[in-house]
């Protein structure tokens, strides 16, 4: 039984220590916005924030958490979908199937946390999420649009 802090709330989780955080979030806490796409930290569909930094939760064992870390999932990124990245995503009508987008949005929000003026080069290096529908053209524009928005 471990205590972890998710979206501002401390919760108690009964999962084996080796269980990836992704499955704790999805199965134990019902936070299914975070997706399983590959299980080997390749696709980024499972991206969440740990203390504001983007992390691929599919390879992050829950036992590695101390309980002090602030974990943020797509459900907790904003209360009402008003995070600048979410606003930009709606305005640009970015999602197609949408399955990769929670991870994409969390990765982008993490990038902009660290680099509010992220350049195309920053995007190329740090946004490595896979989107099979191919929303990348709008994602790039969406990132630049998000930079101009306020929460």
């Amino acid at each position, binding site marked *: 039984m471990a205590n972890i802090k*998710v979206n*501002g709330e401390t*919760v108690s989780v009964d*999962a*084996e220590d*080796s*269980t*990836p955080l992704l499955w704790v979030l*999805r*199965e*134990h*806490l*019902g*936070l*299914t*916005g*975070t*997706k*399983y*796409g*590959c*299980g*080997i930290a*390749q*696709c980024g569909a499972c991206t969440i924030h740990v203390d504001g930094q983007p992390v691929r939760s599919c390879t992050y064992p829950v036992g590695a958490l101390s309980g002090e870390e602030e974990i943020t*999932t*797509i*459900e907790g990124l904003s*209360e009402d*979908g008003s995070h600048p990245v*979410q606003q930009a*995503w*709606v305005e640009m*009508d*970015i*999602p*197609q*199937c*949408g*399955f*990769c*987008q*929670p991870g994409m*949005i969390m990765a982008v929000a993490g990038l902009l946390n660290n680099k509010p003026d992220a350049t195309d080069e920053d*995007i*190329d*290096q740090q*946004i*490595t*999420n*896979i*989107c*099979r*529908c*191919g*929303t*990348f*053209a*709008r994602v*790039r524009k969406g990132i630049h649009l998000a930079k101009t928005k306020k929460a």
Partner: protein
Amino acid sequence: MGDTIKLSRRNFIIGTGATGLTIGILASCSPGESADTPTPPMADAEPVPEVNAWVHIKPDDTVTIRIARSEMGQGTLTGLAQLVAEELECDWEKVTTEYPTPGENLARDRVWRDFSTGGSRGIRGSHDYVREGGAAARLMLIQAAATRWGVPVSECSVAKGVITHGPSGDTLTYGAVADDASKITPPTDITLKDPSEWTIIGQPKQRLDTVDKTTGAQKYGSDIMLDGMLNAAIKQPPKRGATLASFDESAIADMPGVRKVVEIDGQFPGVAVVADYWWQAKTALDALPIEWTPGEGSDFSSSAFEAELDEGLEAEEAFVGNKIGDVDAAFDSAAQIVEARYNAPLQNHACMEPMNATAIWTEDKCEVWCPTQNGEAALAAAAEAAEIPIAQCDVHKLLLGGGFGRRGMNDYVTQVVKIAKQMPGTPVKLLWTREEDMEHGFYHPITKARCQGALDADGNLTGLKIRISGQSILSGLMPQALNDGMDAFAFQGLLPSGVDARAEDQTLKYTFPAVLFDHAMRNPPVRPGFWRGVNANQNAIYLECFMDELAHAAGRDPLEFRLAHTQDSPQLAAVLQAVADKSGWGAEDGLSRGLCAFYSFGSYTAACAEVTVSEEGELKIHRIVAATDPGYAVNPQQIDAQVAGSFVYGLSAALYEEVTFEDGEVQQKNFNTYPSMRIAAMPEVETIVMPSGGFWGGVGEPTIAVAAPAVLNAIYAATGKRIRQLPLKDQSLRDA
């Protein structure tokens, strides 16, 4: 859509809204713990006011448009709703959508007709009857208002869901008369609007399903949680044709959460571990000792299969798909003969959401929740596996986390029902790992082509031969669709016009004096599938890269050379010219350009790729200008999204994607060995949507075909080296 899946609403554990609340709800629900009095999932929650099958209107004027086709990212939900709303004359701001179930369709004599979503047919295959559905509802609503007022219908008009009686100025909203309208006999004489009158069709409306996809609220099949649900992980025979010999259940009996180990027999066999949580099921399955018995195809090697494909390129016998003029005479009298060989490998769909389905089985009922491109086929698969009459089964569709043709197959539905059948009354969710998804796909077919062209002394193309050797999709999936053994669909985009009305949307639009296109069918023991763009993808490479080779061999400009064969297709010429003009074809600006034009799925598409290749052979695709003429453009901004996305799917395939087999087993198990394009490699895409009207073409697939050839031709322009082997990864783009 997230909260509109009405039949299952009460049974969902909704993970949306305030997270505190969510966690509260979920903490109290342990897996496998059935509710005291389970709610019968098939019972309807509340009656929805129905004007007709397509249109439901609530008293608050909310319009729910019922959509039969599956949304997998292509935007069909929004596009089809636009078609209905156009004729309904409702307020677009009040439109929502909902899926009827395949069971409901069956019970109502298929009132929604076809649920199948593939072949870029969502809109072009149903635009007439869904618009008629909207128009019929409008006429009934106006009639209801006129009756209530006691005035002639001819004195009434409607705009944005408000009916006005002209002489008195009285108004009634759709919501106020929907109930009355539902009791009116549907009209039979319906005249659809002229396209010039459209105000919703043709507009770049925002998608109806965007917001939930940005907050995590959107529920996909893999997100389903039902009361008392258990989770299953599956292992299927790694080698082609292998069957299960044995497994040692005792080895994992004490592992956390394990409830049952089940064998899945039949066409899609495997072993599944059912546990409280999926991660437990997967962990236990990984530890389960399983023995497999090799079968036919268990020694298959794709590299060894190359020889069979090469033999097919030379074989005496082949199915003739298109024959025009005297091709032998053209070659006999040629001043120059050009020959080249190309290949296209096996590829996996690799939908972002791995295959999954959820089922609950009891002796007299079976219900399934799943992402599927074909709800009716999923229902049939469920009923067959359940061994229960189809009328006692139903399928609840969820939005797909990618489809691309993969989810037209319902193997995972069969599997989950076979698992659930061994645990009566317990809902079970089956989720494949990415590795299972990679190893058990329905792959893009493997083919090679030998292309031969005859040029006269003036550089005119007098004869063209393309021999395709390789796999047939129809032979593998629906042999009943073969014509005397021939797979006509193998000639997608190369077929003669005026021969088969069903294939008129996949015909050759160039005019050539003499051609012979034939197919030596060579099938590996690997199941093929319809893979976004299907056979148009490689056929466009074979035709359009070779056209480029011919142009250069003839010493002619590739644009001019192509346009010289478009005399019977002004639309093909138009898209080609449009991309050339917009790109600045012929400009000397340090960029190398490559062209491609193709007709498939009823639409004309063209692309001009602008690339550079460094001295070290590193490719950079700077920009692609793409044009598409789908006849009518229902939602131009979604067409733009599909066109741009098509370059990701098409170029990812051309650059990186190949599935290979050794000893019957797929070698690429995940995205680390089956790379997919990332944003850094994505070129800028400039889309020209140029609907010429008068026909309804597809949008989701046609552009895939032009992606690879345009880039390959641009690489040649940059380097002088022809790349004929796909994918490009691990190849030198410049001569060493």
